């Protein structure tokens, strides 16, 4: 079956689509971790919140494109509040405390979602423009999934340009490298962190919104993707944009092929990959230079 070109084309597209989602989700996690050494386990919750915000927004407005704009902004606001009220004070705490607090937030998120939206799974419709199928190399493939791939790619390019070509990007890169030096230069690094944190949350929300029509929306939809996103961060190297991109690509493809080729080992494949990386390249595939 592996040699069947039809199977390869469709399955690789499936892999790319998962990669795009994982990229949107893991980039915020990765950059925040790189900037302030802060592990936000509640990042997956923001993904779930994005999907639920999309559900409510889709009921309120009749336009998917408006939903695509409004819901991630809503998630970024929630993320910002979370940072100001709680996480800001956790920055200097030891990693175990950070993990426990943000782990607790997962349950708070789960319960809140159940109270507000109920325990039943929901779906939202694909917008009419993207509802049908397209032909890719002679294969019929859902147009909406192609849209997800394109969106992931677009966000990657925008972030790349933003990091490489703008002043803010330069500050962020410098901050990942050596935050004390940046602060010593008179830059309000705290504000930069805050903006980056909100942007990361918004992108997790965006991942939730675009995932909503493909996956169903249910309490707990965050857990399986959170684990994949954490693996992506480990694989690519914390704080690295290219690392998050490469890591997402590898995990997305490996998970998609693994599920149907070796279903018994689907999860094992991914964990084994992570273990290999930790042994041979502990700083990740695309490590960020560090001057700590």
């Amino acid at each position, binding site marked *: 079956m592996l040699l069947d070109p039809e*199977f390869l084309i*469709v399955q690789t597209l499936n892999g790319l*689509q998962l990669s795009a989602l994982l990229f949107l989700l893991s980039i915020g996690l990765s950059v925040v971790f790189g900037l302030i050494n802060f592990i936000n386990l509640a990042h997956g919750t923001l993904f779930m919140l994005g999907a639920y915000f999309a559900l409510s927004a889709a009921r309120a407005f009749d336009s998917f494109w408006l939903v695509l704009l409004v819901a991630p902004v809503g998630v970024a606001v929630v993320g910002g509040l979370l940072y100001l009220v709680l996480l800001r004070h956790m920055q200097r705490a030891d990693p175990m405390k950070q993990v426990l607090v943000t782990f607790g937030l997962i349950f708070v998120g789960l319960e809140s979602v159940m109270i507000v939206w109920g325990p039943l799974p929901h779906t939202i419709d694909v917008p009419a423009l993207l509802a049908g199928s397209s032909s890719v190399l002679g294969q019929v493939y859902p147009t909406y999934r192609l849209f997800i791939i394109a969106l992931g790619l677009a966000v990657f390019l925008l972030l790349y340009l933003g990091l490489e070509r703008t002043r803010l990007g330069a500050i962020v890169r410098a901050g990942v490298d050596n935050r004390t030096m940046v602060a010593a230069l008179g830059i309000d690094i705290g504000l930069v962190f805050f903006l980056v944190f909100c942007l990361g949350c918004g992108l997790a929300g965006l991942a939730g919104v675009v995932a909503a029509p493909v996956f169903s929306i249910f309490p707990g939809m965050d857990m399986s993707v959170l684990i994949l996103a954490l693996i992506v961060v480990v694989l690519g190297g914390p704080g690295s944009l290219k690392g998050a991109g490469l890591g997402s690509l590898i995990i997305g493809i490996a998970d998609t092929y693994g599920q*149907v080729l070796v279903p018994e080992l689907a999860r094992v494949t991914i964990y084994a990959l992570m273990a290999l990386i930790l042994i041979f390249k502990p700083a990740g595939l695309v490590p960020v230079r560090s001057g700590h």
Partner: protein
Amino acid sequence: MTRKTSTLAAALTVLAFSFPAYAADPIKIGVLLPSSGVFAGLGGDQTLALEMGFDDFGREVAGRPIELIPADTESKPNSGLAQFKKLVFKDEVDIVVGIISSAVAGAVRDAAHNAKVPLIISNAGNNPLTGEQCSPWILRTSFSNSQIVREMGPWMAAKGYNNVFLMAFDYAAGHQMMDAFREGFVAAGGNIAGEEFPPLGETKDFGPYLAKVKAAKPDAAFVFFAGGPAIKFVKEWAAFGLKGEVTLAGAGWLNSALYVKKQGMDAEGALGILNYVPSIDTPENAAFQENFRAAHGRDGSEFGVAAYDSARLIVEALKATGGATDDKAALVAAMREVHFEGPRGPFRIDPMTNNVVQNIYIFEVQPQGDSVAAIVQDVIPDVQDPPKGCTL
């Protein structure tokens, strides 16, 4: 108060407490359906139809009013068992009816067997409940998983499908459905092109599995999905270009009346096998659907019909015992004697297994008006389970 009036008052008090208590002691029926958890929607659907059943067939037998006592299983085995015990020991109900989830039914089974109170299962289809784990106290008005799909294999083989791909979630019901199909299909000369059992609950995306179906190039696929995943599966099947290339067939919940309209034209051409579809052309079904639509503004589903028939089974058995409920063995015996023409067709309880004997319908989803509906293609009358390991 004078002596006379106080005597009178005492007499009245005695009368007030003894006489009505004797004549109008209510018949208590515990309704064990989820109003929360994953099966809350189905629980709600069965509750509506059960109420409608008692409205139609009587809320009073031999002067005793029928009192329904709801208990929420929360779709969870441990809560289901706790609620069953509460109904039986605290509320002292005469009959328990309900249970959507096979996991809940499995948890309640031993308690029901030991409590010696009739339990009527109105949905859960796990084979062993009326197979090797059958009990004289447990009757099932819905179906067994094998009963629904057993005839589909030979039917599809006869229609010229030689190469079929199987898919269902990896859990008891999924395997029971696929096993029952495979057995009949292979015996009729069919070939299994491949099979996939995605993990239950964890499957976020059908895409990778659909790619595998495509690569296997079967004539048809036979699948079992229900609820939200069924809606998604049918839509993705079309979006991946499989509709029109490979015939989609399934245990009929794939295109349940509850959501086939949400699937719309993506479901068109799908084949299904089930114990009920709203399009069955009998006066009994027409009357049921007319009432249900008038009350709830949508088609009654196979879930609703099983609950509706359960209400009728209870009322007719109570009429047969003259409203007596103290002798529970006699009550069960009366239930096993009940038979009638319901919306599904002829209904009776199989004395060998306590499972329902019923018609099974093979349908095709066809355009109807501006939407789609399941239209009956074939009827297999009086389908009865072999008593696998059950000795009643």
